[in-house]
């Protein structure tokens, strides 16, 4: 591959034609296959791509941390401050790592060693690279903790990781990474495991420290919104190669590679709410299955024979904007309009019924905290604490909130995986929470659930035909085995699975296909309500769009109602008719989806919406919420949100507001706040 022309004067990191391969049981996986990019000092370069695109491996290659002996760097060079790191010795590399290049990881829960205090782990780096003594390291370490915004750094220095929340741990990770003032920080999905309000805190922190220290940042992410708000330059990765490299503004203004264009179109957002989402057919290829030619050719609507035979190289279409595609037009942009792909289709309208499908009244779910020899109950985790929710037939209600707010618990109470402490779950005329035995079994058929993790939601030892027919058998849908199989084939076809896949095992399917299987399993027993618990959260953007479209189609055909539980407001906005926002076991705001998201009233909803990084909106008002979500075992007095609320007054800390209709609007629009 031809080398990219790079400005060599100020580049702090130059990666040229990097190839990182892995030996696997299924042959050589070319995880990174000819990647070139450069980062200037003080700049943020983002690599964005879906799972399996090779973005994390690129980061690990720069650190020389590719898992040996199966992984190895097969070619190319990584020039950092003039030295080629691929040729550096292990000893020299140790001097670079943590000192000149540091890295922060996705999972703050596992990146810190649980048996050492925060201080120990900070001091270790300082002793290693700066030769600091214990006291000196302590002073400096506390200063670093203060810099990353940890309150009470003196005290926190001697605490263990388990005493800190997820957001704080990520701050500690950043403190450790930046302790030696590196020239380059590699942030591998630094906020993916965090809630949106915490995410915006952490991204703000990285930005401000970057300015202060003048370091370069290599940001690895799958989230276009995060890229838009943080990056100076962006490389879009697909199939182990960079397919487009541009300044952030150029990329979003004028995406030129078909993949980039399609990726942006398949994001659910405000603009395309009533439209069918544009999807990229098929799925992200795995590194062992890369084909000849352009890696995107089998999913590309404009691919021609040349794309299947030759690999395109990055070529300038503009100053500082390069794209690897044979099909670029005169303006440097691949024209997808002729392929019919760009045609926007209106979503079919779901028939709305005026009678309710499910009515949840003052639902409470308290988990007892037991302690001591006699297991005395010393308190309760109030996961759900008085929740009202109504779902009409044919309606989609989105339930949003951050982790720990109790939204999943609500879902589990409704499908009766948990027995609620008190409150009513009215389904038709029956209160589900009082049913048991065979009457409960009849209702189980009518309410089904789809789970978040497509990998743990299917039994790995069962053929998918057995998984799908299991429920039919339990509820005597279809009288014979053959009849059930016939029904199964119909459903499989409906959710987009080939009938010859029926006798395969789950490990042979991709994440998106597994989610389709989960949907088929639920549909097999002809439910009326489906609880979708983060059903699309673990999917790649292009696959997520396929599943969202499918959910909408099925709703129209079968008159289903959905309770769509998610932390992702843009997905909820796209799919839901009404939205309920949860905070610490209670609903704080509920109403029509458009209304709530375009015109939020509760300060928490406002902050939540403001915290989502947006692709299409440059000038939105940012609200960064201070602190973490409080523990549900010991919620704050009065309004649970008051310690984090900028509008809070004395009244908020004493009296709990109830959900009340917001004046001037329809009865459906409720909020629980004294200040509305």
């Amino acid at each position, binding site marked *: 591959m031809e080398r990219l022309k790079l400005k060599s004067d100020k580049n702090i990191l130059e990666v040229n034609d990097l190839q990182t391969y892995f030996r696997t049981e299924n042959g050589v996986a070319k995880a990174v296959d000819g990647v070139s990019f450069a980062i200037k000092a003080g700049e943020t370069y983002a690599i964005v791509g879906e799972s399996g695109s090779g973005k994390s491996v690129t980061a690990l290659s720069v650190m020389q941390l590719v898992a040996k002996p199966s992984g190895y760097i097969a070619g190319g060079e990584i020039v950092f401050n003039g030295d080629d790191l691929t040729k550096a010795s292990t000893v020299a590399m140790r001097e670079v790592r943590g000192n000149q290049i540091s890295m922060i990881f996705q999972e703050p829960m596992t990146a810190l060693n649980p048996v050492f205090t925060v201080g120990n782990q900070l001091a270790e780096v300082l002793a290693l690279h700066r030769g600091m003594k214990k006291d000196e390291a302590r002073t400096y370490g506390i200063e670093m903790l203060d810099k990353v915004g940890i309150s009470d750094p003196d005290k926190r220095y001697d605490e263990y990781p388990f005493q800190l929340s997820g957001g704080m741990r990520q701050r500690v990770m950043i403190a450790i990474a930046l302790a030696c003032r590196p020239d380059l920080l590699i942030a591998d999905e630094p906020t993916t495991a965090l809630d949106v309000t915490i995410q915006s805190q952490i991204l703000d922190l990285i930005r401000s420290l970057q300015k202060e220290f003048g370091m370069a940042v290599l940001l690895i992410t799958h989230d276009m919104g995060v890229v838009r708000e943080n990056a100076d330059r962006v490389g879009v990765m697909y199939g182990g190669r960079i397919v487009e490299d541009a300044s952030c503004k150029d990329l979003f203004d004028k995406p030129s590679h078909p993949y980039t264009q399609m990726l942006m179109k398949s994001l659910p957002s405000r603009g395309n709410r009533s439209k069918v989402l544009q999807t990229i057919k098929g799925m992200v290829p795995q590194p062992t299955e890369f084909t000849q030619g352009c890696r995107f050719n089998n999913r590309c609507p404009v691919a021609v024979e040349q794309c299947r035979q030759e690999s395109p190289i990055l070529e300038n279409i503009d100053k500082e904007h390069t794209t690897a595609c044979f099909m670029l037009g005169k303006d440097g942009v691949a024209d997808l309009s002729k392929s019919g792909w760009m045609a926007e289709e209106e979503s079919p309208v779901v028939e709305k019924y005026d009678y309710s499908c499910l009515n949840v009244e003052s639902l409470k779910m308290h988990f007892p905290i037991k302690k001591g020899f006699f297991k005395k109950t010393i308190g309760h985790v109030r996961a759900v604490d008085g929740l009202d929710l109504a779902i009409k037939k044919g309606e989609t209600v989105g339930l949003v909130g951050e982790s720990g707010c109790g939204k999943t618990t609500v879902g*589990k109470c409704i499908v009766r995986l948990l027995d609620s402490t008190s409150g009513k779950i009215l389904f038709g005329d029956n209160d589900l929470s009082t049913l048991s035995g065979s009457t409960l079994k009849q209702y*189980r058929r009518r309410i089904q659930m789809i789970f978040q993790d497509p990998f743990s939601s299917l*039994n790995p030892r069962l053929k998918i035909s057995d998984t799908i027919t299991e429920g039919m058998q339990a509820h005597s849908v279809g009288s014979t085995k053959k009849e059930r199989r016939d029904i199964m084939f119909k459903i499989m076809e409906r959710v987009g699975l080939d009938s010859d896949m029926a006798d395969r095992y789950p490990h042979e399917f991709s994440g998106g296909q597994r989610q389709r299987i989960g949907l088929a399993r639920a549909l097999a027993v002809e439910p009326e309500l489906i609880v979708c618990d983060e059903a699309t959260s673990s999917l790649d953007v292009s696959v997520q769009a396929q599943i969202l479209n499918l959910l909408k189609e099925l709703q129209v055909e079968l008159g289903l109602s959905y309770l769509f539980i998610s932390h992702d407001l843009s997905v909820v906005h796209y799919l839901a008719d009404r939205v309920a926002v949860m905070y610490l076991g209670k609903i704080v705001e509920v109403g029509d989806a458009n209304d709530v998201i375009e015109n939020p009233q509760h300060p928490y909803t406002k902050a939540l919406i403001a915290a989502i990084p947006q692709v299409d909106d440059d000038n939105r008002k940012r609200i960064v919420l201070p602190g973490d979500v409080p523990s549900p075992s010991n919620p704050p007095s009065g309004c649970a949100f008051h310690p984090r609320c900028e509008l809070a007054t004395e009244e908020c800390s004493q009296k709990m507001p109830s959900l009340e209709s917001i004046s001037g609007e329809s009865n459906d629009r409720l909020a629980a706040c004294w200040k509305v």
Partner: protein
Amino acid sequence: MKYFLNSWAFQNVLVVLLILLLAWIVMVMRQSEYWRAAFRRVFKRKLARISFVILSIYCVIALLDSVGFNQPLRDTEGQVQCSADTGKVLRDEQGMSLLDYILTPLRASKEKTYSAPFATHQFTKETVMDETGNSSRKYPALKHPRRHLFGTDKVGNDVLYIALKGIRTGMIIGGMTTLLVVPFAILFGVFAGYFGGWLDDIIQYVYTVLSSIPSVLLIMAFMIVYGQGLTQLCVIMGITSWTGLCRVLRGETMKLREMEYIQACEAMGVSKLKIMFSHITPNLMHIVLITAVLGFSGRVLSEAVLSYLGIGVGADTISWGGMINDARMEMARSPIVWWKLFAAFVFMFGLVLPANLFGDALRDALDPRLRTE
């Protein structure tokens, strides 16, 4: 009852049961792509293949030793003797196995007493009268010189033959005990893990109590009450050793219970029993298999220790532990008689090492924590 339990016939009933069960397991596994793939991974390894062949040889010998018949009695001319009044062929009261029959030359080559491996002369001096009537003390020549790979024992039996006879005992102890342990461990482990609450408390209580009694003590007490014998040993070893596997299975079940596919079944209204035995148990089988194979060799070794302590299978059953027990006296003589101990060691090592290697290969192929997918 004691005699029945120890009778060869009853033991063979158990052996047949064991074979049927193994055959069934192999059948079931062959149908599942998961197990086929797992065993392909196991047999990719040279060491595992070699281990498997050695284990198979042991199995074949044990089986040959389990097929028995009564030989007809013959007179000195080799004529089959018949009963005078009924005309039926008279048979040897003492049963004989196919292995005995195959090893007839080995069995028949008896000496008078100890002889070292491949020796030409006896190990001990004897007063021998020559033709002239002069008596002298010397090492008499053996009847079958250079024939005894592992020498002969006190009464002149070939040690190789005894060691080969020990294989069946070892295999039965390993296999039978495992057969007893696995169902109990699965049943209790899955129930405790899945239901939790008071059921879990009771089961936990039982196995905590059981595992806090020294097992040697328990085995000794059991043997005194029910008598020494192969079957009794299997039963008591089963009782003392299901707790470890049960504990692991309980923990794994608690983890699986929270998996989304189990929750999906619950939301679907699938019955609890069905969830436990057709959803959870298959996902535990890799742990069961690994533990069974590794536990197998552990049990063969404990038999030796128990027999050495005098609470093993008993003197009338040939076993490696019994051989080691005999060696206690032989090692005390001077010069020492080492070959019986050596033979027991070689045969046990030859069974336990391949079993462990095969178990390791299985674990590597099955344990998801060790595999990077």
